[in-house]
């Protein structure tokens, strides 16, 4: 949406194809954003303003199928059989949230009080954090790296956002439930964004969040309907067992199914992490293996909203350079 706005304002005619009924991706499912806890709707409003331009045609609820390049011109066929002609394409198919059921040992989809970060956002939005039986949880665990940094599920990479999401959500839990005890189980605290480390510190100082360094090994349910987690407290060098009322899994980011489909249909290269492989990691992160086709955002790697918007602007800039000067 950001790239579309930039291009439209620079005189390009843009067609934005979105398979969902509304554009905006995962942001619209989130309640508050890190690091400043802004309401996600503000970002959506901003983005909607970007695409509110006469040069932009929005095709929502539209998927794309085939693509061919004829004499330097792209012809994209939509799922409905229509054709869209374009001089350049930006692919911004985004990411899918990791399906937490795949980490079988955490029991998502089996144990009622194991939820994901997305489920928790939903609870925040409703303003109510409740266990499955309607009780208010007093002890809540948060598991980092679910589906990230994990060869077992085929994802070697770090999803970058889950650590900071965990910190943010831990603090929000405390805002809803002042007396709750919150425990983050992490392998490394990857606070590599502006104001992230500060938020982490605040979560310790003001919110009294507990941090335990160790990857949760398994989750089970005991006779009292509590979850039991097993982890090594690696900094004490001893195994640790804890009962919890609720466990939140920080689901990682994966290449979207839609992106995978397009990669196959259009012959776009993907990396070992299955995301689209940019032409160059240093100075060509928006360029692809097809001349005139560019990438924007999390279809190339996990990134946060700030980076995604910057990446979209960079994609627009690459498109302009390509259209005006033939550079690619």
């Amino acid at each position, binding site marked *: 949406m950001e790239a579309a706005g930039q291009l439209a304002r620079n005189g390009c005619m843009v067609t934005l194809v979105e398979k969902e009924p509304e554009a905006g991706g995962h942001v619209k499912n989130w309640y508050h954003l890190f690091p400043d806890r802004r309401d996600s709707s503000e970002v959506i409003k901003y983005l909607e303003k970007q695409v509110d331009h006469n040069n932009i045609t929005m095709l929502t609820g539209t998927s794309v199928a085939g693509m061919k390049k004829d004499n330097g011109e792209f012809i994209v066929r939509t799922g409905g059989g229509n054709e869209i002609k374009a001089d350049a394409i930006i692919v911004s198919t985004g990411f899918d949230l990791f399906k937490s059921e795949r980490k079988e040992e955490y029991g998502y989809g089996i144990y009622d009080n194991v939820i994901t970060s997305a489920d928790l956002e939903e609870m925040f939005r409703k303003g109510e954090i409740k266990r499955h039986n309607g009780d208010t949880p007093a002890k809540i665990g948060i598991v980092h790296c679910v589906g990230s940094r994990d060869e077992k599920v085929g994802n070697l990479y770090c999803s970058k956002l889950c650590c900071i999401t965990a910190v943010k959500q831990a603090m929000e839990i405390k805002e809803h439930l002042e007396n709750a005890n919150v425990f983050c189980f992490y392998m490394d605290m990857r606070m590599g964004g502006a104001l992230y480390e500060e938020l982490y510190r605040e979560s310790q100082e003001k919110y*009294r969040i*507990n941090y335990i360094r160790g990857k949760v090994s398994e989750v089970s349910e005991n006779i009292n309907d509590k979850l039991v987690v097993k982890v090594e407290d690696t900094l*004490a060098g001893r195994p640790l067992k804890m009962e919890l009322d609720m466990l939140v899994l920080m689901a990682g980011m994966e290449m979207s199914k839609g992106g995978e489909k397009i990669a196959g249909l259009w012959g776009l290269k993907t990396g070992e992490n299955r995301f689209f492989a940019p032409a160059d990691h240093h100075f060509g992160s928006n360029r692809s293996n097809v001349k005139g086709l560019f990438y924007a955002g999390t279809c190339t790697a996990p990134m946060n909203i700030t980076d995604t918007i910057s990446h979209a602007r960079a994609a627009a800039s690459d498109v302009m350079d390509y259209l005006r000067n033939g550079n690619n």
Partner: protein
Amino acid sequence: MEKFGFAISKGRQIDYDANDRSVAEFIFEREPSFRLCIECGCCASTCTTGNFTKFSLREINILLKRGENEQVRKNINKCMLCGKCILVCPRGVNTRNVIVLAKQAFQKQGNYAI
């Protein structure tokens, strides 16, 4: 118990829910900076005692937070309270005071550090 030549052992798993964290709470109240520790180990690496014995201030911090008080009680007096650890802490934790307060808490429990 030893009728068979072996016995049932207690295990070394930290049973978080069974542990008593009142010592940690006592310290948190009086020295809030204790919450800021990120377990980087700077204190332990500069610690004179730690360089000559098995004492680890970093580990003491974690054990206090988990309520593994017995292990702390048995080791804490190795600290000479020189305070060098405070100088290196990147989070500004008053590590020396943590030790002082832990000793006080033990004393209050009538369970002196040994």
